[in-house]
């Protein structure tokens, strides 16, 4: 059996397996750290910055999803400072694109919206960017609305790591970054797409959805990706 390491999360001493990340250990022990880009069963990328935690001896905040535990690590997962930074991160996600919850298929079932509510957000303090963004409806069954994409890359990793098709990627840099299928080909013309729809289920917002749903109508099977990953580990 692997030697365990002892870490302290919000004061509680927890035995963890080396190689586990702070987020994995916290969640396995019933401690909640918010995250949007993390999904159990996928590699972690630290993109959304919501799981930032305070780690003793570190002046900088560290993303819990990519920071491995080590002996003696002391982590604070919630503090007024963390709360305020997470709020900022969420508000900037809303300000960056046109989420328009009222007409979104995922409203009421959206992870971004739920986190905004958890953090007591009632308005966005930053000026909205109002970019002009495309909606790709070329796929016969699914739709990609860039207005609602937060670039978490869960779809990218689901397609590459679980389905093995690697249709999706993020192109461009900074605020110009866009989710692309194949090499900027419309989704409907992407020959490597198997139309499995796991990217749609993995998407935390209404950026990817099944066609045919009205506002607030689409619920996603959040556990499908994690379940497949677990089953393959056992194979």
């Amino acid at each position, binding site marked *: 059996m692997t030697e365990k390491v002892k870490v302290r999360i919000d004061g509680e001493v927890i035995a963890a397996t080396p190689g586990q990340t702070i987020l994995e250990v916290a969640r396995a022990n019933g401690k909640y750290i918010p995250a949007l880009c993390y999904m159990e069963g996928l590699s972690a990328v630290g993109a959304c910055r919501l799981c930032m935690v305070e780690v003793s001896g570190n002046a900088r905040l560290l993303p819990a999803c990519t920071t491995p535990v080590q002996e003696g690590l002391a982590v604070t997962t919630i503090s007024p400072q963390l709360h305020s930074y997470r709020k900022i991160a969420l508000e900037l996600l*809303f300000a960056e694109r*046109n*989420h*328009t*919850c*009222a*007409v*979104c298929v995922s*409203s*009421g079932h959206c992870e971004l*919206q739920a986190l*905004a*509510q*958890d953090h*007591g*957000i*009632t*308005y*966005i303090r930053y*000026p*909205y960017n*109002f*970019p*002009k*963004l495309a909606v790709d409806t070329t796929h016969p069954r699914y739709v990609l609305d860039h207005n609602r994409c937060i670039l978490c890359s869960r779809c990218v990793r689901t397609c590459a790591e679980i389905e093995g098709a690697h249709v999706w990627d993020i192109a461009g840099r900074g605020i110009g970054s866009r989710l692309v299928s194949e090499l900027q080909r419309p989704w409907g013309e992407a020959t490597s797409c198997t139309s499995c729809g796991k990217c749609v289920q993995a998407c935390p917002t209404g950026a990817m959805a099944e066609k045919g749903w009205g506002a607030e109508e689409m619920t996603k099977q959040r556990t499908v990706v994690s379940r497949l990953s677990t089953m393959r580990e056992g194979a």
Partner: protein
Amino acid sequence: MDKVKIGTCWLDGCSGCHMSLLDIDEGIVAVLKKADIVFGPLVDAQEWPEGVDVALIEGAVSSQDDLKLALAARSRSKVVVALGDCAVTGNVPSMRNGIPVRKLLERVYVEGATERPGTDRPGVPTDGVPALLKQAEPLHSAIKVDIHVPGCPPKPDAILFVVGELLEGREPDLGSKLRFG
């Protein structure tokens, strides 16, 4: 004790938030025991009056008239409430923001118009309609907003809670009571 003065208005919105306000049903009786509605689509006043205590403003700031009314409401009211998603985020009216105003009006009033024999060639109306601003913005981008009540529309219970708290002189703590967006 003098009654509290409430003013309401809708800018670029669909009036749904006002419908939700009416949906507080008999709650309105309790509100009107303590307050008068002195301005809004439901009353006759033409100008936003001085000395309003609570302004409930629905809709995004989208035209010159919206801006003028928002500024008047702000300068003559103690507490300004952004009522509903359009006032809070810009919501549906802001979906036009990626399109330049001239192109937008051309598309709607010229390209989108059906020509009927015997009528004038369709054109962009200018008489009696306020000029559109470059973008439809949330209320707080134009004036200082004290309380934001998101929702499309906000639930009647939420509106009644906010108004009730304000009538008692308390700042309503919406916190996690409301869904954002």
